[in-house]
C-alpha cells in the first residue's frame, strides 16, 4: 500500500514542526493517517501554532486520549493486541528446529498476552478501541526464522516494559496503576526469557542496553512508542495520540 496512508515523516527535532514546510507535510500525512513522530509535546506545538485549527482529524483510525485513564488503558490494550497477534501467529507454525524450551516459553507468552488483551478489553468495556490492523510480513518478520521470531519478540517485550513504565505516571486511579504494575512485571519476565534464548547465559536478560548505570529499566513516553519505534511499525491502523 505505497500511498500516503503508509508514509512516514521523520522529524529529527521538535523545532522542525515550526518550519512551515515540515509542518504542512506533518499535518497532511497525519490527516491521512500516516505514521509520524507524534510526541505529545509536538501536538501541543501544533495546537499553539496558528496555522489551521480546522485541519480535519484522521478520517479513520484510533484516537488515544492519554489525559484519561481509559485512554491510557487503551494504549496498553493496543500493545497487548499487537503482542497477542504476534505470538498467535508464531504459535500457528513454529519455526523449524525449535527446542522444547523455546516452544514452552513462546507458548506461555502467547497465552499471557492473549489474557492481557482480553482482560483489558473486559475492563474497558464499551470504552475500548476497535481491533487494530497489524502487519508483520510488511515489517519483514520471517516466522520461519528463529532469529527473526525471537528478535521481534524482544522488541515487543522490551517495548512493552518501556511503555508501561512510561505510562504509569499518566494513570490517575491507583487501582489502574496497580493493574498496570501486575502486567508490566510479567512483560519484564518475558523480556528476560526471550533475551536469554537469543544470547543464552549472558548478561542480556537485563543487559546494559536496557538497564542504565543507575539500575533503571527503560521508560518511553506514551505515543512515541506506537508512532516511531521499531514496535510501532507493525501497526497499520492510524493511531492519533493526544495528551
Amino acid at each position, binding site marked *: 500500500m505505497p500511498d500516503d496512508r503508509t508514509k512516514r515523516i521523520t522529524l529529527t527535532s521538535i523545532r522542525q514542526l515550526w518550519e512551515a514546510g515540515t509542518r504542512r507535510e506533518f499535518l497532511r500525512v497525519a490527516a491521512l493517517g500516516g505514521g509520524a513522530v507524534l510526541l505529545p509535546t509536538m501536538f501541543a506545538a501544533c495546537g499553539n501554532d496558528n496555522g489551521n485549527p480546522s485541519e480535519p482529524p484522521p478520517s479513520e483510525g484510533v484516537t488515544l486520549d492519554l489525559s484519561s485513564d481509559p485512554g491510557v488503558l487503551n494504549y496498553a490494550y493496543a500493545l497487548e493486541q499487537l503482542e497477542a497477534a504476534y505470538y498467535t501467529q508464531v504459535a500457528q507454525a513454529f519455526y523449524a528446529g525449535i527446542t522444547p524450551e523455546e516452544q514452552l*516459553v513462546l507458548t506461555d507468552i502467547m497465552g499471557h498476552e492473549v*489474557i492481557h488483551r482480553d*482482560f483489558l478489553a473486559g475492563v474497558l468495556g464499551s470504552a475500548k478501541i476497535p481491533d487494530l490492523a497489524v502487519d508483520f510480513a510488511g515489517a519483514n518478520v520471517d516466522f520461519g526464522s528463529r532469529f527473526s521470531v525471537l528478535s521481534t519478540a524482544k522488541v515487543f517485550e522490551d517495548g512493552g516494559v518501556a511503555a508501561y513504565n512510561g505510562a504509569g505516571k499518566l494513570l490517575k486511579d491507583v487501582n489502574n496503576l496497580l493493574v498496570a504494575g501486575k502486567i508490566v512485571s510479567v512483560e519484564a*519476565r*518475558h523480556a528476560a526469557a526471550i533475551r536469554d534464548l537469543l544470547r543464552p*547465559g549472558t*548478561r542480556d536478560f537485563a543487559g546494559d542496553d536496557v538497564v542504565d548505570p543507575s539500575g533503571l529499566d*527503560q*521508560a518511553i513516553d506514551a505515543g512515541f512508542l506506537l508512532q516511531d519505534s521499531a514496535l510501532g511499525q507493525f501497526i497499520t491502523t492510524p493511531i492519533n495520540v493526544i495528551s
Partner: protein
Amino acid sequence: MDQTHSILDTVEPDVMARVVSRRGAIRQGSGASSAVIAGLAMASVPVAIAALARDAYAQATAPSIIDVLNFALTLEYLEDEFYRTGLAASVAATLLPPELTAIEQVSKHEAAHVQFLLNTIPALGGTPVAKPTFDFTAAGAFPDVFSNKATFLALAQAFEDTGVRAYKGQAGNVASNAAVLTAALQIHSVEARHASQIRRLRGQKGWITNNDSGGLPPQAQAVYDGEENTVHAGVDAAPLGANVGGAPAVTEAFDEPLTMEQVLAIAGLFITG
C-alpha cells in the same frame, strides 16, 4: 534524625522486645514446620508496621514517599549485601558460567539501586536509613547459604520475586510524584528481569504459576502466597485462560503486590538489627 538509625531502630522498645523474643523462637525452632514459620510471620505484622518511619506511624495513614524509599532502600541493602557476600564466598566457585554471569549482573544492579536511593532520598529532603545487620542464614534456617549453590540460588529467587512484589505494592504510595513513580517502576521491572533469569537458571519458568514457590524452602512460601489471585480491578480473569492454559496461565500473566508489612515480615527473617 541522626545518620545511623536503621529501619528497625524506629520500632518502639516494647515491640523490639517482642522481635528479639521472636528471633529466639525461630532459633529454637530451626526445624519448625511451615505452619509455625507462617505463624511467626503473622505475629511479626505489628513489628513491621512499627518499622515504618515515625512520621508515618504518627499519621496512621499511607506512608510518605520518603518512608517508601527508605523501605525500598532496606530491601536493596539486603539484596546488595546478599549478592556481594555470595560472590566473595565459596559458593561463587561452584556456580556455572551462566549462573555466575547472572549473579554478577544482578549484583551490579542491586548496588546501583542502593546508590540511586541514597542519592534520591536526600534530594527529596529525607534521611536515608542505615544499612541493617543481616543474617542470611535466617538464624540457622539456611546454614549453607553461601556454600551451597542450591540454597544460594533459592534465596536469590526469593529475594527477587519479593522485590517485584514489594515495589508493585508501593507504586500507589509514590504516585503523587511522577518522577519517583517512574523510577520505582523502572527498578520494579529490573527486579522482574532478575527474577525471571534466576528462576530459569533453577529450572523454573520465568513466571509464577499459582502460588508455587518452585521448590523453595517452606520459609519462603510467604513470598508466593497470594500469587494465585485471578481477580484484578474487580474482574475475575480466570475464564480468560480457557483456550490458553487455563486458570494457571492467568495466574502467570499477573504478578501480585505485597504490602510493606508483608515484605518486612519476610525481610525481617534476615535482619538482626
